[in-house]
Each structure stands twice: as structure tokens, then as C-alpha cells.
């Protein structure tokens, strides 16, 4: 895996057109909602109108009588098994509904409209139960119990980490800052909604077309939920309209589509409406993050003590495993020797959260970076100087045992500072105050051993037209993984990018991969592709050496030719000829290489120690904002975003992920909130769930710093989540710089900022 430091690349590092871009700009791409399967009918889900209730009675007769309805499933007429991380969830609810998402029935009908009409005709009698919507209230002894088998409404995961002697460090500290940060529900809000098509064949095998991003785990979990063996399920991933972590679990829509299809013996397609998408697709975990940081008078960090309360919602999904990452940042971002971390994860009758880009790191970073600024202020230190003092460095080992190899964190800050301080064309407007804020981040960049395996398989086939096919376990979810993997194969094999195709969307064909998450795809799938390409290259050279009658050591390959190094122009054969000669003969062979790359990392042990990733990504962002004191409005004028990417294999892709990540992070910071009241979603639409529009976005200046990590494919590290992680902290710090108020609750709506400014003026006066 040694880096190609001095060599210039032919494909890596160049600006290329995304492999599927032509289909996308011409409308030829077929997303799941565009698909039709012969004999297909439509499914619609009926959900509870109340968040917590006993189901007294379901009567589907009127609905079944509607012409065009093929069948209806409920928790009472199908066989299903519990699913989900804590196995506390049934796809179709029996006896009790626990949150406003809960699926009570599903209808299959000839048209989508008929299915919806039929849903309205299903009669369900509910007996409402007392409900609880706040974690603190849910922990009280008299609170309604959400799950009988989990008394006290406590989700049994413990994330308790201790390193060093935190209490002593706090006693000996020169300064302590503390704060409580309240982070809200946001949702992925993908432009393409969740969807599934389920189709059973006469032998009882199931094909699923899904918006999942973890096809193999999905295959296994779905089999379990349906009570069949995994070899009976094939998962196909059509092009998807975004994911960002949404597709990281098995959800009721998937199981229900399969149950419905089995029930009516026809393929069934379910596509979420937009309001259903806001209601029923997974959110980021809302939490209250309490942090204390202790430091010496020169700014050296001594200790951190954090407690996070997470609103789990009604069922356990990935949102409640995000403390893994919160903890990693708390214990690892900036050097801090004494660390204590604990969580309380609480069942409520709210909607449940899943995984969303950044996966807990946004919240942790928000708290930490607020306190770095607070410390600087208390100690009279420069905000960047205190960060430099405590910055992670190559060779560091964090209290959990994470091994930092390459690390350009400080260089990222320098680049961000340089760019944020470039002149701004227009002066501040009257009534607006300007400020600059900084925040950095640290995240896994070399895979993430969250499961026992962090592996990905790859097969590279070379055909007799000189074309390479990469069959990879990794999934394309719009982020550009296909393109960067093709670039890796093209570079390694010495062929143009246009001669590489990627096959990656069918579990019946592609080798195993644990899934798209934790920014792991470029690194893990990239290494797998590189190894598989090297394998096929070895075979190619071996075959060519026979044909050229030269030792392999005398040969090179480039531009689609294998040639003798000493006589490149005269003694060479095109790949296609080598391959053809390889199988058009007696005792022939094909050229196919394969690899399964699973990095030498460790899962966290019971004490939360272990090196979960083979390398780590770092970044720093700076935000230049203007705040209007009379209204509380914030405008972000410029974001400088500098990233230690190892190597920018696909610069267009890197920039795109960062720019998009900044959009998502700024939304989290300024305008996005899924508002829940008494368990109901108040704003299930784009009018009042506010994604930033084109005119809202600031100037974005991106710097890619290449530390060339020897563990990564051509030196690359993961990047997918990085742009999202620190930006809220940078903006909050910039607001502090501009108007002197420390905001600790997101989003920073004008009203919230205005109130904080008024409050600080009135306390300043006393």
C-alpha cells in the first residue's frame, strides 16, 4: 500500500466527469420510483393518528371491498419477527402503537390512489394511553412505560468511558468552563424519498429493490424479520435520490413491502410521499450535551467530563449508537488526557432517530469547540493559539487507543484562517456586525470497525476489448464512490477512465461489503479495488510475459499496453490481445482478480478501547458571519473549509462532498428543525422544514491538504461526512465574535439570537 509519492498520475487527481453524470443530466437515469416491474401493484401504509395507544380493533372489510384492492396486511394476519438494533420493533404493530410513525396496516391495490383510498376506509379503534415526549420526564418513576421489557424507559446501551483521573484534574485545573448544549431533530430530507419494491418468485425467493445503503446487512436482517433464510433474498439498489445515512438500517417499509407482496402474490411498490418522508424517515438524534472542560493557565487541556441525554424515541435504531462517535471525539479531538463520558438514552413516544451524516460528531464537536473559545476568552489567549497548543499530531494515541498516523489538523487551521481573512468586497451593512469563528474536526478516515467486519470485496475483470469491470461490494448513493473506485482501477491498470465500468448494485453479483457509512468507502472499497486490480495486473503480466517471451520483471504496462521496458514502441501488446490470446487457446484462462480488504483495526472493547480505524481525517473550518442585532438574523458570508484528505483522488468529488456537507451543516446550524409537539410533526414539508436555497449559501473556499497516508489507496482518507461536522460550531463561534453572545441551542433562528442579544444587553446593564 505504499504511496506513489513522486510519480505523476494519469487519472488520480484529475478533474473527471462523474460516471453516471450523462444519465443524470439527460433524464435517462431510472430511480426506484421510475421503475415498473411486470405485474406490480402499489402499496400504501396506514399510520396511527395518535402517538401512544392500545389498538383495540382493526376492521379492514370496507377497505377490502373497494374495487382494485388486492389485499391488506396488519399485525394480526401476517407472520413477522421483531427487528432492529434492540429487537424491540415489529413492522406492523400489534397491541400498542408507540409513536406517530407507527404502521398499523398496509394495502396493496392496482393504483397508488386506490391504495390510499383504501387506507382511509380501514377502521381502527385506539385507546389512547398517557404519553411522554421528554427524556427527563420519561426517566421519572411515574412516567408511562413505552416498552414493558425495558422498565424505566432506559435503553440499555451503556457508553461509559473513563480515562485518567478526571476529578483530580478538575481539582488541579486553573480554569474550568462548562456548558449545556441542546441539539435538535433534523432529518436527511433527501430529494428522493424512501421506496421499496418487493417481488417473490414461485419458489419463495424474494427480490427487493431498495433505497438501502447496506444491502448485505439488510439482506440478513430482512430474512430474519420474515422468518426465511438469507439465501432467499436478493437486494438490488437502483440509483437513489440521496441517502446521507438514511439507508443504514432495515425499516418497516422494507418488511411491509415484502409482507404485502407475499400476501397478495404480486410485486408491490411503496414510495413515500413527501410528508410521509418527513414523518417516517430517520432523523438525527436530538440530545442535550453537558460538558465541562478543565485547563491550565497556558491553555493546555487537562480534562473533559461529558454527559449526553439522548431522546431515543419509540424504538431503538442507529441514532442511539451515535455515542460511540460522540465519545471518540470527546476523548480524542485535541489532546486531552483525562476524560469521562456517560450517556442516558431514553425511550419516549417521539419519532426515533437513525444515523445521519456525521453520526454524533456534530454534537460533540459543537460542545468542544464552543468551550475552546470560552477557554481562550477566560485565559486571554488567542483562539487559534489554544487550538494549536492542543492540536492532535501524527503519532498521537488517544485515551481510547486510537492511533493517529497522518494528521494535518494545524495546517487545516492555518489554511482556513488564511482564506477567511481574504478581503471581502462589500463592507458590513449598517446595523450588522461581523465576526469570524473557527472549529475543527476529527473523524474516522480509514474505515470504522463498528461491526466485527469492516471489509469490502472487489473483483476486477479484464475483457477482450481491454475493458475492466470492477465488481464492488460498495454502493453508490450519489456521493461518487463509483467514480473514485473506477479511477483507482484505471490508474492501477494503466487504462483510460472511460474503459472502466463499475457493477455494484446487486447482492447476487457483487461481493460482500458491510455498507456505506462512516466515510469508509473510498478507503476500504478503494483498497479492495486496488488489491483486486493488482491481482489482475499480475495475471496480465504473467500472460503477457508468455506471449512476449520476456520475464515479468522486464515488463511494464501503461495506456492499455503491456510492453518491454527496453523497447516500449516495438515490443508491446494491447491488453485486449493478451486477454484474447489467453482464452482463445487450449487450456485457456480468463483474467479476473479479486480481493477482500478488511483493515487491521479493532472493535472497541467493553471499556471502549481499541483502534477502530486505520487512519483519521481532520479538518478545520472558519466562518465569516454578519449578525443584525435588531432582528437576530445571521448571514454567513464565507466559509473556509480545509481538509486533510490524505490524497485527493477525485478533486471534483472531494469538493462536492465538502460543499454539500457544508450545506447540510449550515442547515443544522441556522434553519433546519423537525418540530415535534406532543409527538406530532408540525412541519412535514419543505415550506417549514427549511433547506437553504441557492441564494442563502455563502462563498465557499475549499483547501485539500494531502498528507498521503500510506494506509489508504494512493494515500487517500475518507471524507464524506467531514464538511458537515464542524460548521455549526464555527458559526456559533463567529456569532460570539460578532455580537458577544454564546448560543448553546440549535438552530440559531433569528428569534433565538435576538433574545440572546437582548438578554446580554440587559445583564450587561445591571
Amino acid at each position, binding site marked *: 500500500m505504499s504511496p506513489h509519492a513522486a510519480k505523476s498520475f494519469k487519472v488520480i487527481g484529475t478533474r473527471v466527469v462523474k460516471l453516471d453524470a450523462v444519465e443524470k443530466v439527460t433524464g435517462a437515469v431510472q430511480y426506484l420510483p421510475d421503475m415498473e416491474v411486470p405485474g406490480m401493484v402499489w402499496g400504501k401504509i396506514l399510520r396511527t393518528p395518535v402517538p401512544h395507544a392500545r389498538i383495540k380493533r382493526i376492521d379492514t372489510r370496507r377497505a377490502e371491498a373497494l374495487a382494485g384492492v388486492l389485499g391488506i396486511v396488519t399485525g394480526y394476519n401476517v407472520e413477522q419477527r421483531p427487528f432492529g438494533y434492540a429487537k424491540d420493533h415489529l413492522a406492523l404493530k400489534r397491541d400498542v402503537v408507540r409513536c406517530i410513525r407507527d404502521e398499523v396496516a398496509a394495502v396493496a391495490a392496482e393504483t397508488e*390512489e386506490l391504495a*390510499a*383510498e383504501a387506507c*382511509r376506509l380501514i377502521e381502527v379503534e385506539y385507546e389512547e394511553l398517557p404519553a411522554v415526549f421528554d427524556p427527563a420526564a420519561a426517566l421519572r418513576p411515574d412516567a408511562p412505560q413505552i416498552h414493558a421489557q425495558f422498565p424505566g424507559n432506559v435503553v440499555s446501551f451503556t457508553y461509559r468511558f473513563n480515562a485518567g483521573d478526571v476529578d483530580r484534574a478538575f481539582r488541579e485545573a486553573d480554569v474550568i468552563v462548562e456548558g449545556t448544549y441542546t441539539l435538535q431533530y433534523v432529518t436527511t430530507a433527501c430529494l428522493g424519498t424512501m421506496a421499496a419494491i418487493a417481488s417473490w418468485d414461485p419458489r419463495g425467493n424474494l427480490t427487493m429493490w431498495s433505497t438501502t445503503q447496506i444491502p448485505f446487512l439488510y439482506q440478513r436482517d430482512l430474512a430474519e424479520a420474515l422468518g426465511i433464510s438469507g439465501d432467499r433474498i436478493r437486494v438490488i439498489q437502483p440509483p437513489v435520490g440521496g441517502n446521507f445515512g438514511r439507508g443504514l438500517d432495515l425499516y418497516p417499509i422494507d418488511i411491509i413491502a415484502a409482507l404485502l407482496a407475499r400476501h397478495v402474490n404480486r410485486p408491490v411498490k411503496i414510495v413515500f*410521499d413527501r410528508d410521509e418522508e418527513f414523518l417516517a424517515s430517520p432523523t438525527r438524534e436530538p440530545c442535550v450535551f453537558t460538558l465541562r472542560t478543565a485547563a491550565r493557565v497556558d491553555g493546555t487541556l487537562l480534562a473533559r467530563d461529558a454527559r449526553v441525554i439522548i431522546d431515543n424515541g419509540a424504538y431503538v435504531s442507529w441514532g442511539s449508537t451515535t455515542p460511540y462517535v460522540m465519545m471518540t471525539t470527546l476523548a480524542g479531538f485535541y489532546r486531552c488526557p483525562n476524560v469521562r463520558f456517560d450517556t442516558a438514552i431514553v425511550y419516549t413516544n417521539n419519532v426515533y432517530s437513525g444515523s445521519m451524516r456525521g453520526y454524533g460528531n456534530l454534537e460533540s464537536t459543537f460542545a468542544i469547540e464552543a468551550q475552546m473559545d470560552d477557554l481562550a476568552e477566560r485565559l486571554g489567549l488567542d483562539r487559534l493559539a489554544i487550538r494549536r497548543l492542543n492540536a492532535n499530531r501524527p503519532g498521537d494515541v488517544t485515551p481510547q487507543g486510537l492511533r493517529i498516523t497522518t494528521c494535518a489538523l494545524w495546517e487545516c487551521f492555518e489554511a482556513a484562517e488564511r482564506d477567511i481573512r481574504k478581503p471581502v468586497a462589500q463592507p458590513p451593512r449598517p*446595523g450588522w456586525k461581523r465576526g469570524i469563528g473557527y472549529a475543527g474536526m476529527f473523524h474516522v478516515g480509514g474505515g470504522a470497525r463498528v461491526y466485527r467486519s469492516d471489509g469490502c470485496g472487489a473483483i476486477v475483470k479484464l475483457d477482450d476489448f481491454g475493458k475492466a469491470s470492477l465488481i464492488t461490494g460498495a454502493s453508490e448513493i450519489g456521493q461518487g464512490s463509483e467514480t473514485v473506485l473506477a479511477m483507482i482501477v484505471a490508474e492501477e491498470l494503466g487504462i483510460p477512465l472511460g474503459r472502466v465500468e463499475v457493477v455494484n448494485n446487486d447482492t447476487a453479483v457483487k461481493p460482500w461489503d458491510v455498507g456505506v457509512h462512516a466515510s469508509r468507502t473510498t478507503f476500504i472499497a478503494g483498497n479492495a479495488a486496488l488489491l483486486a486490480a493488482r491481482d489482475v495486473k499480475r495475471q496480465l503480466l504473467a500472460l503477457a510475459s508468455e506471449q512476449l517471451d520476456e520475464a515479468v520483471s522486464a515488463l511494464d504496462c501503461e495506456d492499455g499496453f503491456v510492453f518491454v521496458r527496453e523497447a516500449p514502441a516495438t515490443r508491446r501488446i494491447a491488453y485486449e490481445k493478451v486477454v484474447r490470446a489467453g482464452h482463445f487457446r487450449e487450456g485457456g484462462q480468463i483474467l479476473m482478480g479479486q480481493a477482500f480488504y478488511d483493515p487491521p483495526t479493532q472493535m472497541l472493547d467493553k471499556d471502549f478501547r481499541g483502534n477502530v480505524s486505520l487512519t483519521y481525517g481532520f479538518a478545520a473550518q472558519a466562518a465569516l458571519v454578519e449578525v443584525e442585532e*435588531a*432582528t437576530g*438574523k445571521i448571514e454567513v458570508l464565507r466559509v473556509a473549509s480545509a481538509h486533510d484528505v490524505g490524497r485527493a483522488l477525485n478533486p471534483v468529488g472531494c469538493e462536492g462532498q465538502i460543499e454539500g456537507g457544508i450545506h447540510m451543516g449550515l442547515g443544522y446550524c*441556522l*434553519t433546519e428543525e423537525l*418540530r415535534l409537539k406532543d409527538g406530532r410533526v*408540525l*412541519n412535514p414539508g*419543505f*415550506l*417549514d422544514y*427549511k433547506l*437553504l*436555497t*441557492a*441564494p*442563502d449559501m455563502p462563498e465557499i473556499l475549499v483547501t485539500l491538504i494531502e498528507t498521503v497516508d500510506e494506509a489508504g489507496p494512493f494515500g487517500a482518507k475518507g471524507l464524506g461526512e467531514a464538511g458537515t461536522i464542524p460548521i455549526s460550531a464555527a458559526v456559533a463561534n463567529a456569532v460570539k465574535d460578532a455580537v458577544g453572545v454564546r448560543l448553546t441551542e440549535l438552530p440559531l*433562528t*433569528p*428569534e433565538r439570537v*435576538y*433574545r440572546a442579544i437582548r438578554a446580554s444587553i440587559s445583564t450587561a446593564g445591571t
Partner: protein
Amino acid sequence: MRPRFAYHRPETLAEACRLLAREPGAAVLAGGTDLMVHLRQMSRGKRPTAVVNVKRILGLATIEVTDTAVRLGALVSLTALIEHPVIQEEYPVLPFTARYMGSPGIRNLATVGGNLCNASPAADLPPVLVALDAEVGIAGPRGERRLPLGEFFRGPGQSVLSAGELLTRVEFPRRHRGWAIRYERLDVRRAMDIAIVGVALALRVNAGRVSEARVALCAVAPTPLRVRAAEAALVEGGLSEGAIAQAAELAMAAARPISDVRATAEYRREMVGTLVRRGLTRILSDDTSGVTADP
């Protein structure tokens, strides 16, 4: 879920009024940017029995400028309003305001009449048109009638149109040479947002003295709200610091905002004051930024 409904396409005004009189539960379809959304959200009980598409009726989509009046047909699209050269030249506050609404695609479709008849308390055009002393023309079974725009709104989502009536135009007198006219709006995003508070100001000013004033608010009452007390304060005190402060106080006192998912009532009330002060201060300093037709 997508609704199904009976559908009519009258060719004349008379036919439309007859249809509407016969089916009081029918909804009028102009651009559809509000109705088509409402139809998806309405419960079955409240759904219109039929939809009457009025876009085939001739003569309702013109902008007519005479020496004394500017007449906007009910079916004038927001884009047409924005692009009309006389409106751009003489009433740039109208394109400025219309640009806050929706998006370019929505503005191609949405109509002035539709915006008024939808009667959203947060709609931006109503306070501006009220500040221009606009009147509406209504056609009905008993002929035509006219009404000051301020009397057109009954409550949230409700106009005074009765069964069989159709809004045909809104017009205002072309007498604002020398006036300073502004629309101040508070929102969260630069586009696609509904106003949290909107303030329309129209002043006939000369050397700091105000001879006529109109102050109209949106999003802080069930209907667009004209604050005559604030107008009187400005006529009396001109654009002095005291009069500006007083006008702001009076506007805040007159507002009856509610708390909703976008903002609290308290914040809205305070922002009325802020926007009134800001608008008047800009008029005082002859600041025409943000009232030109260009973005």
C-alpha cells in the same frame, strides 16, 4: 394524497359566476399555487366539490396603465407584474415585493388575484397594495362592484366574496410621483419563505415633512392591518426621530400576532417596531436600496 374533483372551464365571466353561484362549494383555480397544495392537505369533509378553472376567461390577464390608474387584471401573473416596464419604473416596490414570493417558476404561474383571494394573513402583496390605496373589482350575479382592498379580507383564508362572485381586478391610482414607498420584510431564508412580519410604507414626503402616509402590516393579524394612528403620527411629526419612534410604537400596539411554527407572537410584535423604524429611517436617508426592480 392527490385529490380527484369535478372540473369546469368556463369561457366567460358570466358563465363562471353562474357556475360558482350554483356550486358554493367549488374552488376557483387561477395559477393553482395555493389551491393545488391545499387540495392535497384538506380533509375529505372540507374538500371543494368542484374546481372552476377561470384561466380561459379573456380580459383578466392584462395590466392597464392610464393617466390616472394602474389596473392589474386578476389573472396577471407575478412574473408579468415584475416585468412590466411602467411598473418597474414608477412602482418598483411591486416587483421588489413579488420577488419575495415563491420562486421564478411559481411566479410564472401565480396570479395577483389568486394571492389576494387566498387571503393568507402573511401574504406580501396585500399590505403593499393597501398602502397604494388599491381597490378591487368583483363580478357577480348582480353585476360588478368595487371595494377598497382593505375591506376585501374577512379573516385567515377568507375574503368577502360571496357565492357566485369572482375577483376581476385590483387597481390603484397612479398618483405617487414624489412618494417614498417601501416594503420591509422579515424572513429566515432568501427565498421560498413566508414572511414572519411584513411592513408596507408609503409616504408623500418633502423635505422631511410628510403630507400623506400609509402604514400596512402583514403576518401580525388575521388580515392585512392598516395602522392609521401611525400614519397620523407621521403626518403630524414628519420623519423626526420622535415621530418615527412613535409610529413604531403605535404599529406594535396595533399588531395582533400569534405564535406558530415560524415565530412567537412576542417576537413578531417587536419586529413590527424594528421594521417600521428601519423602513422609515431608510426613507429619511433616501435609501432606495432594495426597492429597485433588479435583484
